[in-house]
């Protein structure tokens, strides 16, 4: 297991994996563990209390325990990010496969569409789309997926093109191998690694962007324990109640850091060639 050994030597990547594992663990055990009262029902007598033995992260303006909300918030963050990435892959990978394999104007068209989506910075596009299809978490997710699929499309396109241009694909088609089979057996394995790397980094990026959208009031709505939303709600109570803003933000930072570190490590492992843009 030379690859495993090599991975284990990359300390930041292992750290990243550890963080991700912790966050997933928290997301799994927090909801049953944290009592729903702590998350949704606040004790107004206890509002805006600083961190203490009873409330590790303090309480927010509705008296809710911030620690519980941050822990439960991890669930929403992970589910949303995963859904966005899966959706982006579902759109981007087939598009990339098609564009890379076909050589006619269909391929050109797909790549031009990709370029257009990439010609607007992502958040702006997400904002515009989310605004136009209506507010709410689902539309935010769709908007994010629409801004992220081009990255998968591009990656898959270049890999597919590269494989397609090798002589053996022509030879295979010459002896009658079906296109489908060629894609499945020869192209997909090559494409899988960059896609996985891109997906991991995409998780981190999506969590960040979802937080921004939550902060702006698009996407998560009260009383969801969304990290971005929590920061928005607590902002007006600064500078006194600093804990309400700090801890959700730290949660975002650590989680995204974990995905980024791990994604980096994956990239180095999977293809040293891809090292270029780290």
């Amino acid at each position: 297991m030379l690859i495993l050994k090599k991975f284990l030597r990359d300390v930041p990547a292992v750290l990243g994996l550890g963080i991700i594992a912790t966050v997933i663990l928290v997301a799994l055990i927090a909801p049953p563990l944290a009592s729903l009262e702590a998350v949704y029902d606040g004790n107004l007598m206890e509002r805006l209390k600083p961190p203490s033995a009873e409330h590790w992260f303090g309480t927010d303006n509705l008296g809710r325990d911030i620690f519980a909300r941050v822990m439960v918030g991890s669930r929403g963050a992970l589910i949303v990010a995963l859904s966005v990435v899966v959706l982006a892959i579902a759109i981007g990978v087939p598009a990339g496969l098609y564009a890379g394999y076909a050589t006619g104007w269909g391929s050109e068209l797909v790549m031009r569409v990709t370029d257009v989506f990439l010609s607007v910075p992502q958040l702006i596009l997400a904002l515009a789309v989310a605004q136009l299809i209506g507010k709410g978490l689902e539309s935010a997710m769709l908007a994010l997926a629409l801004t992220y699929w081009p990255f998968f499309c591009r990656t898959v396109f270049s890999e597919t093109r590269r494989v397609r241009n090798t002589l053996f694909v022509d030879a295979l088609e010459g002896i009658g191998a079906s296109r489908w089979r060629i894609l499945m057996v020869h192209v997909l394995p090559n494409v899988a690694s960059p896609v996985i790397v891109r997906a991991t980094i995409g998780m981190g990026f999506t969590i960040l962007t979802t937080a921004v959208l939550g902060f702006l009031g698009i996407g998560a709505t009260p009383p969801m324990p969304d990290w971005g939303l929590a920061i928005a709600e607590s902002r007006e109570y600064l500078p006194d109640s600093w804990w309400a803003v700090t801890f959700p933000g730290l949660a975002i930072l650590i989680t995204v850091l974990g995905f980024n570190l791990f994604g980096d490590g994956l990239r180095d492992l999977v293809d040293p060639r891809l090292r270029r843009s780290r």
Partner: protein
Amino acid sequence: MTRFILRRMLLVVPSLFGLLVLTFVMLRVLPNDPSAALAGENATPAQIAAIRKAYGFDEPVWKQFLIYLKQVAQADLGNSTNSGRPVVSDIAVRLPATIELTICALLFAALVGIPLGTLAAVWHNSFFDHAMRIVTVGGLAVAAFWFAIILQLVFSMHLDWLPLRGRLAVGTPEPPAITGLFLVDSLLTGRLDVFWNALQHILMPAFTLSLGGLASIARFTRAGVLDTLQKDFVGYAEAAGYRTRRIIWVYVLRNSVVAATTQIGLLFGALISSAVAVEAIFDWPGIGSYAVTAILTSDYKAILAVTLVVGVIYAIVNIIVDITHALLDPRVAESL
């Protein structure tokens, strides 16, 4: 060289056209009743009908697109439902603020990021290199809006070292508008007090905005330098007796920076995205905060106009980047 510039500018045309199509689709296709959406939440049926006529929503799609193109060409993107003024003039007024902020952030990110990345590559696998890696990944992981709030908390609210928001302190006169960039204009007109004031105000927003960029620049400078260090001409330079400092900071850096210029174009896009949040937090009167207000008040025309404008700016920046790339690397100018 001029041929290269011309050809490069021509390449932009399909992208811009695609952008127009995209914004048109968003305008037309997505909302259930586009005319109602455009008229705003409190529009009367008469206003909605007027919009329907003006935009031609009853007409076939291709005709609508032509109407749309005509509107864009005349810089008529409608009026904001908030300000009541033409969206285009709203944006024009606010654009310099965003440009000033973005340029400051980019400059800082480059001035700090490039040396850091170079050193990390030269001291490959050292403690510094590993520390840098975690720091840069952290820089990309930090939520700009949250970091902005924390900065405000510490430096404004607690320490009272820096102003909380805005471009200038309330009551300070704006410098005469030459470029629209306060820092430049105040220096050009000798108003050092205004300069100082503007500088204090831009410090936190620019720093926040620069974080992601700094991390990115450090990372790809590091990758570029590492790559370049493997090249034959570096080995040759060493064997031929060049001084090490010169090899790194003159020869290697130039090659790495050349490779990195294309990355800077992509970076700009990310910067604009982050600028939205940063401007909102610091009450920076640019197009980012304008977009946020537009979102919150469902001001469709404003949002679409911002999308269009940002897309165009992005395209222009990419052209400039490509031209700079060609200037730095003569082989590029002869391709295309």
